[in-house]
């Protein structure tokens, strides 16, 4: 029986609590009475994953079995989530590769010759061959790379097709190959409730023209939260697009869910509850903390980016997108949902070394903002964990480091745009178009491994709801100049941060801390 998540109330017997702080850690003694939201323990994995995949393909939800959709001479496209999922990346074999192998076995048996595999990387950077091989596995990679296994190119005029407009005037433009296939099979890993469903194809295989319909400040301000699809304007938009797309191409969705076993040895201590740390756990954490405190940041990054999580698969569902996603979300909630009573004045979170957009890369300050004010702030259903006008305190060093190859437009966004203003709406109106259509950024996106020119804007929009909602944001241990550029404040210690926050929320605030990772979704009542 898996232990559910719970809300701890800090008392005098509570040991210091561990928070991530970039490529390091901090132990913090929270004030007595603070509440800490702990995720459930990892769910047990499926004993027979291959059997579960076969069952999903042969007994899909609200769809004919895969075999009935396959025939000789057809065009089959298999699209799959890119390296932004899961976090940390999954230890081989990646579940996407295993599912794709099963789909290909069926396709081969049915005599399907025309098969293409596309990484649904949207405006993310192109995955390297090595990264793709890790996801799809050696057998698939050798069979299809590079001619029939490739990254999606959202700036290839020949490779895109305009499908039309939804009833809300949202443009739908996606990969031509996918849209003109007889069958599009989409394979995902549903790490959080935001992922999957109709967000997979209309986002993962779309163009900037299509994405701008919902990746904008207005939509994000009306997605409360985007981790709760029924309350999310982003998801409503994706659903309209998905329905429109469904009229043009048959989509067979395969969604998978993983448990929260996020850290392999010797990092398991990072997801244990502190009061249960054995002497060995304490020694490990001490060694980790000391080592990371002394290493150059590049070495720390290299060390942590090598982590491959020993996830276990908790669910595989296939069939029509909506029916599958309903089951998928139930699995995600089973692993992540924790009930929390009432909002806090202050929300505390540690920002880890990794987010969706810096796998094998650098978490630059804009990505830190996206991770904290975007993802962590939005890990709620119902109401935000912190009240309107409250304060969010985060632990992160806020290095002014950027990956030159992966995030070129981020550098200019940070140096030029944020130097001018931090208001998402102003930024959107004044700068987005320019960055999105800049030929150099487009070139780097298409031929190098750069995120699209517009991507840093989306990261900023992702945090727009939090920026609007919060009265103040304080980074503990952050670089002051960087924080100032981002429009936030800095403190040396948590005590100082609480002191700063007291100017906004008063001297005896209610404090809630989010223990994440592993991921936790708060149901706030």
């Amino acid at each position, binding site marked *: 029986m898996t232990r559910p998540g719970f809300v701890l*109330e800090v008392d005098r*017997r509570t040991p210091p609590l561990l928070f991530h702080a970039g490529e390091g850690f901090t*132990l913090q003694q929270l004030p007595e009475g603070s509440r800490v939201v702990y995720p459930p323990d990892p769910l047990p994995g499926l004993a027979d994953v291959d059997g579960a995949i076969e069952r999903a393909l042969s007994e899909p939800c609200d769809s004919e079995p895969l075999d009935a959709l396959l025939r000789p001479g057809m065009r089959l496209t298999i699209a799959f989530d890119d390296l932004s999922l899961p976090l940390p990346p999954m230890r081989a074999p990646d579940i996407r590769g295993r599912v794709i192998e099963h789909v290909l076995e069926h396709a081969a048996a049915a005599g399907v010759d025309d098969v293409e595999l596309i990484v649904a990387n949207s405006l993310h950077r192109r995955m390297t061959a090595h990264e793709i091989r890790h996801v799809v596995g050696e057998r698939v990679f050798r069979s299809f790379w590079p001619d029939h296994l490739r990254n999606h190119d959202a700036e290839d005029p020949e490779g895109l097709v305009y499908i039309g407009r939804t009833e809300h005037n949202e443009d739908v433009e996606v990969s031509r190959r996918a849209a003109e296939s007889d069958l599009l099979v989409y394979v995902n890993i549903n790490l959080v409730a935001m992922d999957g469903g109709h967000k997979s194809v209309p986002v993962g295989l779309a163009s900037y023209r299509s994405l701008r319909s919902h990746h904008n400040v207005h939509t994000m301000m009306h997605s409360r939260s985007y981790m709760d699809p029924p309350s999310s304007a982003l998801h409503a938009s994706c659903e309209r697009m998905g329905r429109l797309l469904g009229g043009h191409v048959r989509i067979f969705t395969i969604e998978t869910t993983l448990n929260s076993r996020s850290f392999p040895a010797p990092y398991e201590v990072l997801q244990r509850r502190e009061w249960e740390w054995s002497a060995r756990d304490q020694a490990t954490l*001490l060694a980790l*903390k000391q080592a990371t405190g002394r290493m150059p940041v590049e070495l720390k990054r290299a060390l942590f980016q090598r982590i491959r999580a020993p996830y276990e698969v908790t669910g595989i569902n296939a069939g029509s997108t909506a029916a599958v996603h309903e089951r998928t979300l139930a699995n995600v909630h089973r692993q992540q949902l924790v009930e929390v009573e009432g909002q806090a004045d202050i929300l505390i979170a540690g920002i880890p070394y990794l987010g969706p957009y810096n796998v094998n890369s650098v978490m630059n300050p804009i990505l830190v903002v996206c991770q904290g004010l975007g993802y962590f702030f939005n890990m709620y259903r119902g109401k935000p964990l912190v009240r309107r006008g409250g304060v969010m305190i985060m632990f992160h060093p806020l290095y002014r480091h950027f990956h030159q190859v992966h995030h070129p437009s981020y550098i200019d966004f940070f140096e030029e745009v944020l130097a001018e203003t931090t208001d998402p709406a102003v930024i959107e109106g004044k700068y987005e178009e320019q960055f999105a259509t800049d030929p150099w950024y487009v070139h780097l996106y298409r031929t190098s491994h750069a995120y699209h020119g517009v991507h840093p804007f989306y990261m900023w929009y992702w945090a727009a709801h939090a920026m609007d909602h919060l009265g103040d944001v304080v980074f503990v241990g952050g670089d002051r100049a960087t924080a100032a550029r981002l429009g936030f404040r800095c403190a040396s210690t948590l005590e100082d941060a609480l002191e700063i926050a007291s100017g906004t929320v008063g001297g005896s605030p209610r404090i809630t801390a989010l223990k994440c990772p592993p991921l936790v979704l708060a149901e706030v009542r």
Partner: protein
Amino acid sequence: MGLRRDLRIMARGWRWGDAPPRPVGVDAPQAGRKPYGWARRRPASAVRAAVLALGFAPLLRAEVSATVDGVEVLERVEPPVLFVANHASHLDAPLVLTALPPRWRDRTAVGAAADYFFSSPARALATALVFNGFPVERFGRSQAGRLSLELLEDGWNLLIFPEGTRSPDGWMGDVHPGAAHLAVATGRPVVPTALWGTYRAMPRGAAWPAPGRPPVRLRFGEPLLPEAADNSRSFNRRIRAALAVLLDEQSSTWWEARLRAGRGETPDPAGPPAARWRRVWEATRADDDGGGMWAR
């Protein structure tokens, strides 16, 4: 970042050399069998009887001037019972145990704070052997309630200090309903047990009784049986009220205490609200002259 600083944080936070930390409301690790069962078997009982009779009893006689009253109530009740006592000193448990007739003492187990008395192997061994102590979780849900229940069902009398900790100022603290809950659940009687003067004799922080054989008094009250209408909370109120009357009786006379109880004027054993030093001052008066803050 410094190693010494981290070591200090971890040593303090994880209580190196002591019981591991466990916040309130967090489950204790599940034990497969009744802990310290050996302490309730015959060899350990024999050792305990010898230590209490030949060690603690003479020692207490030498160090404090103890008066024990009300032992006769035990003639009117069948074991097992719950002795529920106020708690101000480490003298309390040995005083009660040595005051009990041997046939009761030999079948009595003492609830002891798991996070203190069972925090290190040596302390746990001594607690279990000498006092027949069993771990009681003071702060969270745990199996301690189940263990108490099992001990009662096995015929063991339990000595429970429902305040959960020694009084910091000599006055009675909150009475937690754990003992009342056990009594209601099992239908077993509660013998209210009032201890007076032990704070003055050996308060928190003292390792030995004060010089001059300070007076301490112990009184067993009339057994209380949970009635059909009682729940844990209402029965807990009855227990607290009984302790209050007994304490009143300790510091005056049985009759005066009865009269005040009849008028609903029994002094609150929690004492009057005042600065801590004044409460300590009052609780450590050389003799109770009925004056001071405790106005009658």
